[in-house]
Each structure stands twice: as structure tokens, then as C-alpha cells.
């Protein structure tokens, strides 16, 4: 039973003759998935999101850089300023996401590499998350930005003066006397690149394996084809 399920997931194996003959066709999805995995792994080492804040009394400006598992920059200064408005501490934000981020992204990369061996439509399960990851990241970031701006401690001295707000995920905004500007970091752009590479890999995968999958299901429906090896 299990073996059958595994076989179905793994999909049809390519005949050696075919592999040699159509090297490019079968290599293409492998290349794209591998490239996407590498790009994702590398993206961990780059910032995902950048925020700059400017106010008259900060001539050099303040900056916050979000990596997948931490914040860097003028975090201490911002924490200090935040407490006047009642913004929660950064420590309490996205705790789960930050703790699983590196393992999770490496897991996505691992899934992509595993997908190299999946010749059936099940490949989408393996590589799909990599395609969806940037969307998920943006959605999660947007949620936390909204959350922080709407969880102001009413006892904080200036919370009333500032009111509730949502810092824009990209582009200009304003928090109290600060003009803000946010943009995606190189890490996030690599995550998008990985998603694009994966998507193209899926297309290449379909082009390579569709005939085999179609042939296999015909075989199942019809007579077994002894020329197809397991």
C-alpha cells in the first residue's frame, strides 16, 4: 500500500535512453529547482526589509533592518521612543516566525531539492511552498505592522496624540513626527527570484514529465508497457 503510494508520488522514472537523448529537457527543471534552493538559502544571509525614519532631531535618521530572524539597526533607540506612544516591544513581535525562519526557509530549500526526484504532479506539494513564500512573508509582515500600530497601550503618554496607524510595508509613511520610508531588502528580492525560478521549474517539469505521466496513466488504464522501467 505504502509502496504504491510512494510510487505514485515519485512518478514515472525516465528511461536511460530518454535521459541521454533529451538531456536538456530533463535537466531544465532540475537546474531551476536547484538554483531556487540555493537562492533561498543565500537569501537568509541578506536583509529582507528596510525601514528608515527621519525627524528633525535625528539628522542622521534612524534605520531598522529586518532579517528573517532578527532586527538590526537603531532598535534600542526605537524601542525607547516607542514606549512613549505605547507600541509593544519588538521582542514580542513575530516570535514564532522568527524562531522557525531559518529552519523553515532551509526546509523550503530542502523540499525543492527533494522535488528533483519527484516526477509526478505531486511535485507541486514539494515546491509550491517556495513559490508562495514571498507572498506569505509579505502577508505576515503586513499583519505585524498593522498589529503593532493597533495595539497601542492606552496608558502611554503620547498614544492619544498619535492615534492608531499602520506603517506602510513599502514606500512613504508617517509615525508621530517621523517620516518613514520602507523598501524590500535584497534577501526578499532573492526570495522572489527563487519563487520565479521555482515557477519556471514547474513549467519545465510539466513539459518534461507530462508525456510520461500521461503515458503512465494510460498504461494503468490500459495495458502495462514493459518498456517503461520502474
Amino acid at each position: 500500500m505504502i509502496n504504491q503510494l510512494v510510487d505514485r508520488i515519485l512518478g514515472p522514472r525516465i528511461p536511460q535512453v530518454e535521459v541521454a537523448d533529451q538531456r536538456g529537457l530533463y535537466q531544465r527543471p532540475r537546474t531551476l529547482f536547484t538554483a531556487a534552493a540555493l537562492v533561498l538559502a543565500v537569501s537568509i544571509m541578506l536583509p529582507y526589509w528596510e525601514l528608515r525614519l527621519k525627524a528633525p532631531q535625528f539628522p542622521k535618521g534612524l534605520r531598522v533592518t529586518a532579517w528573517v530572524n532578527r532586527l538590526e539597526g537603531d532598535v534600542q533607540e526605537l524601542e525607547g521612543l516607542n514606549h512613549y506612544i505605547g507600541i509593544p516591544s519588538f521582542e514580542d513581535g513575530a516570535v514564532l516566525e522568527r524562531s522557525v525562519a531559518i529552519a523553515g526557509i532551509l526546509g523550503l530549500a530542502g523540499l525543492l531539492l527533494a522535488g528533483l526526484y519527484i516526477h509526478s504532479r505531486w511535485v507541486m506539494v514539494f515546491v509550491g511552498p517556495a513559490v508562495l513564500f514571498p507572498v506569505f512573508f509579505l502577508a505576515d509582515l503586513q499583519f505585524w505592522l498593522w498589529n503593532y500600530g493597533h495595539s497601542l497601550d492606552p496608558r502611554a503618554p503620547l498614544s492619544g496624540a498619535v492615534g492608531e496607524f499602520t506603517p506602510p510595508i513599502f514606500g512613504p509613511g508617517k509615525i508621530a513626527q517621523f517620516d518613514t520610508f520602507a523598501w524590500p531588502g535584497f534577501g526578499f528580492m532573492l526570495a522572489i527570484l527563487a519563487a520565479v525560478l521555482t515557477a519556471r521549474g514547474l513549467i519545465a517539469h510539466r513539459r518534461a514529465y507530462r508525456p510520461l505521466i500521461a503515458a503512465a496513466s494510460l498504461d494503468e488504464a490500459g495495458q502495462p508497457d514493459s518498456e517503461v522501467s520502474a
Partner: protein
Amino acid sequence: MGRVHRSIFSAALFTALALVAGACGSSSDDSVISESSAAIATERGLSEADINAALKTYTPSGQIDEYIMFASGGHSGQVFVIGMPSMRLIKEIGVFTPEPWQGYGYGDENHEDLFAAGAAGDEELTWGDTHHPALSETGGDYDGEYLFINDKANGRVATIDLRDFETKQIIKNPISINDHGGTFATPDTEWVIEGGQYATPLAWDYAPLDDYETDYRGMITFWKFDRAAGRLDYDASFAMELPPYWQDVCDAGKLVSEGWIFCNSFNVEMSTGMDPADPENSEPFEAGASAGENDYLHIINLEATTAVAAAGKTVEVNGFPMITLDTVIEENLLYFAPEPKSPHGVDITPGGEYMVVSGKLDPHVTIYSFEKIQKAIAAGGFETDQYGVPLLAFDDVVEAQVEVGLGPLHTQFDDQGYAYTSLFLDSDVARWSLGGPYREDGWKLEGTIDVHYNIGHLATAEGDTVSPDGKYLVALNKWSLDRFFHPGPLYPQNFQLIDIDEPGPEMQLLYDMPIGNGEPHYAQIIKADKLNPYTVYPEVGWDPGTMSVDPDAPQVGTEGVIRDGDNVTVNMTLVRSHFTPERVEIFEGDHVTWNLTNIETSEDATHGFTIPGYNINLSLEPGETATIEFDADNSGVFTFYCTEFCSALHLEMAGYFLVEPK
């Protein structure tokens, strides 16, 4: 378009073009200044020279000064930090006088130690008469790390760390009551020199004035600088006994003359002033000290001197090693050369070849050649003074004399081979040319510029180093008279910035800066980018006294009040905008040790701290920790608060200190 329309259009276009051309044309008539700027100048009565002076000094908001001047504060007891060319006062460093805004001497334990070290016997001193600041040097050039300053009134020296511009050390000279020829640094700041002035019996001894020649002495102290520790090393220092000739200003030789020290004197006559018991046969100092034709330039072989001290050929005076005058003569450490009348400054040229003595009561600068001095010493066969110190012949050691004007006091140098001497009586600065390797047309008066009024010292940019920058000269004038709005009968001094960039007889007066908080005597001018001060202390819990982290400093999480019998320890942190804890409750009579740390890490995030009624005020810069200690003798409820405006909720940064009656 119709004909009429076309001609109207052309006419309009032509007019527009003409107007534009006219506007361009008229603005080019004024070459540099636009019409509106010229109108402002006319309205304010400014000449072209004034406009140029303004252009050379005005520093717009956000621009940093090119040079930083450290000027002594005279009897304010402090050191002034002034930006140039804007001539803006940036800071007054607390040195010998408590300064509350900086929290200097108002409870901080570090400062109590400093002032205790500077006490004269049992008397704690709360002022000083600072005269000559000396920047630390490496290879004869300013390195921007430390500044030394003397206190003439009480015979003390201080060390200032230029990482945070704060005084770290005060030393009371154990032998001499007062000083003047200090502080001066040797080219690698191995030694900081403190020369004495008014002769007295050494080590606070007593002797009547009749015994002046036998019992009164001058002295010069050599303080060893330990750069790694950032302190003068008391235990490695020593003094040298000198005849009671009222030594004056000193300078350290550099390059060819490195290893030698030069000081002038002005009372070789050994006048002891008007004697009320014998007015017929005595005269006031002003006449008595000026009676003779010459005083003596003191030429000290520092290398040989330090060897003698290291060999232990010293006696202990007040527990401090001193080379006696007899040993000095025996070991050939000191030579005299005559210097006219009662001279004031001795200044060494950038290459170290010449010693320039400013005549004060003689209208000349007398230039001594180091090479000739060495030859004369080697030749031997000298006369001696009454104490036995060898006396070199004037003609053997003098290179040249330049008549510069009345009342020459002090000389500085530039990068074009010029020397600048202050003329007190003429109220001028004289520019004259150095000969030898400096200028073809040497030893000649080039020109003078009026200063307002009665100049004491002067300073040129990096002017006493081996490579002066030229460009700027500051005249430190003693009288301001009609230069400024006068705030009552005590008039400010006047610092005048002078442009010395152009060679030739002309110099340009650029700016008058009133000094209404002290009487500067001398200044050091250093290129601003050689200084590297902290923006914040490097780590939270930093003790400025040791310039390192204090492991016992209060940190986040260790705050609280700890009781041990009658001793209470308060550990408090400061951040925008609260103290932790905000309540401290103790009993009357408790002995309190209060530790505070400013846990901020952003620049300019300073917090103050005061306990009313206890004369306590602290200034804690970001990262700084401090300790105050006192007995809570007064019961009551005291509100401590942050004295330095720190944030939008600065007023709320306060706390209650409850001292319950026993």
C-alpha cells in the same frame, strides 16, 4: 497667426529676452556680490575688507569648524574650547574650579578624589589660575589625545583626556607654592614641564626675606607621562633646584634641539620688593626686578638630567626627589646665557634650531642658535654666576636680534618662515622673518598689525609644533576697552582672529571674540580632524575616572535599594524618561552610597541628577556611571529629578527620596 498678433508676440518675446539679458548683465557688474548682498553691506556700514572677513569666518549651521583652540581660562581655573574660524565657544572644561552643568565637583566621587589630590595641605582649593595649556605631542606634532594645564596660583598641574574632554588628574606640586613655566610637553610627551616662578623657600619652608639669596630657590619639575595609563606618573617624576631668579616661561627643544629645555627668567637682580622697614634702600619689584641689563636664559640638558635623576643623585624634599643646585652644577645640567632686560617668552622655532626670547622691557627679540650654544658649551672656559652656574657669553650664542617694537612678550611661527611676536605696549602683532634655513631675507621686521588692546600671548595654528599650519593667528588681548558692549566695570578680554595666509607686510583682522568668563594666557590650536572624541561612552557602565567599564555599575535588572545596617546602597539606572527606582526610602542618619548609570546609547542623550538640599548635581552622559556618597543627616521628603532636559517627558523624570526621621 494674424500680423498684429505676430508683432505683439515678437515684441513681448524681445522684451522678455532683453529683461533677462539686463538682469544677467547687472548682476555680473557686481562681480562677486549680488545687489541684495551689497545693499546689506551698505546698510550695515561694511567695507569690502569687512565683507571678506565675514566670508572667511562665517560658518553656516551644520558646518564644523576647521580648527579647535584650547585656551587657558586664567583665574576661572578652566580651559576653553573654541572653534575656529567661527570663533564660537564650544565648551568650558572644568579643571580646577567646580562646574555644575558638567556635574564637575558637585558630589561625584571621582571629582572629590581629584580635588582632594589638588589640595594645598588641609585647604581644599576651588579655583585655579590656569595659564599654559599643552597638547600632547608625538614626533613633535599634536596627536589630539591629551591636554595638560597648570595652576599658577597654587602650583598644580592637571591632565585632561580628549576622548571625553574631562579632567582626569590633578597633582599638587610638593615642592613649589606656585608655578608659571608650565605646562609644556616634550616632542613625544615623555615629560611635561612645570617651571616655577616666584622664588620661595622650597617645600613650604619658612625663611625671612633677608635670607633670600641663601634660602629662597626656584625650581622646575619634570612630570613623567604614562600614555598607556593616560596619567602623569608621580612616582617617576622629579624636580630640579634653581637659583631664585623668578623663572618664567619654558619650551622644550625639538628636532635638532630635542632633549634640551629652555626657560627664561626675569629677576636675576634678586629684588625682594619694597621693604617698609627700610624704604630708603629698597624699591618695588617693578623697578627692582628690571634694574639690571640682563636676566638669564636657562638652558637645561634634559637628557643628562633624567639620567642623573634615574641614577638616584637626588635628595628628598617633601618626599619628592629633587636634584640639588650643587648636583646640577656638578653634573653640568644647566647653563645660563644673558637675555636682555626682563624677557618674557622663550619659543623654539619649528626645526628646533633657534630659541627666540621676547624682550618685554627690551624692544628686541633675541634669537639664540642651538648650534652656537652647543659649541660654546663644548668650548668651555665660562664665567659663572654667584651660585656657580656656567654663564655662556652673549656674543657666542646669539644668532640675531630683531627690533620688533615695544613690549615683546611671546612668539609663534607659521609655515612660511615667519615669526609673530606680541607687542604689549605697542598693542601690535609684529611679523618678522626667520633666517637660516627659513627665509632668504631673514631676521627682518616685515610688518605689524594693530590689535585691540594690549596683547599678551598669541597662538598660531599648530604654531609650536614641528610643522605649523600658518593661516590663522589669534591675539589674546588683555583689554577690550571700546570693542564690545561693556557689561558693567569688568570688561571682557578680546580674542582677535587674524588672517596670516598672505606673505608680505599685510595681515588682516577677521573677528573679535569677547571672552567674558576668564582671562586666557595662552592657547593651543589644533586641526579639528586630529581630535577623536567619543560621541557616547563605548559601553554602558563606563567609569570616566578609570576610562573603562565598572563591573559594579548598575545595569538594567540590578536596580534597587540594599541595606546593610546603617549603610544603604542605591543602584539606579537612568533612561528616557524615568529613574529606576523612582522611590528611595531610608532612615535619617543612614550612610548612603548612590550608584547611577545612564543606560542610553544614543548621542546627546545626557541625563542630570540632583538631590536638593545636599548640593549634589551630576551630569551623566550616555553609558556613564557615577557614585555619590553622603550621610542622610536631614530627614524629610526630597524630590530628585533629571536636571538636563532629556525628552518630551523630562519633567516627569523625577523621584521621591524619603528620609524617615529616627
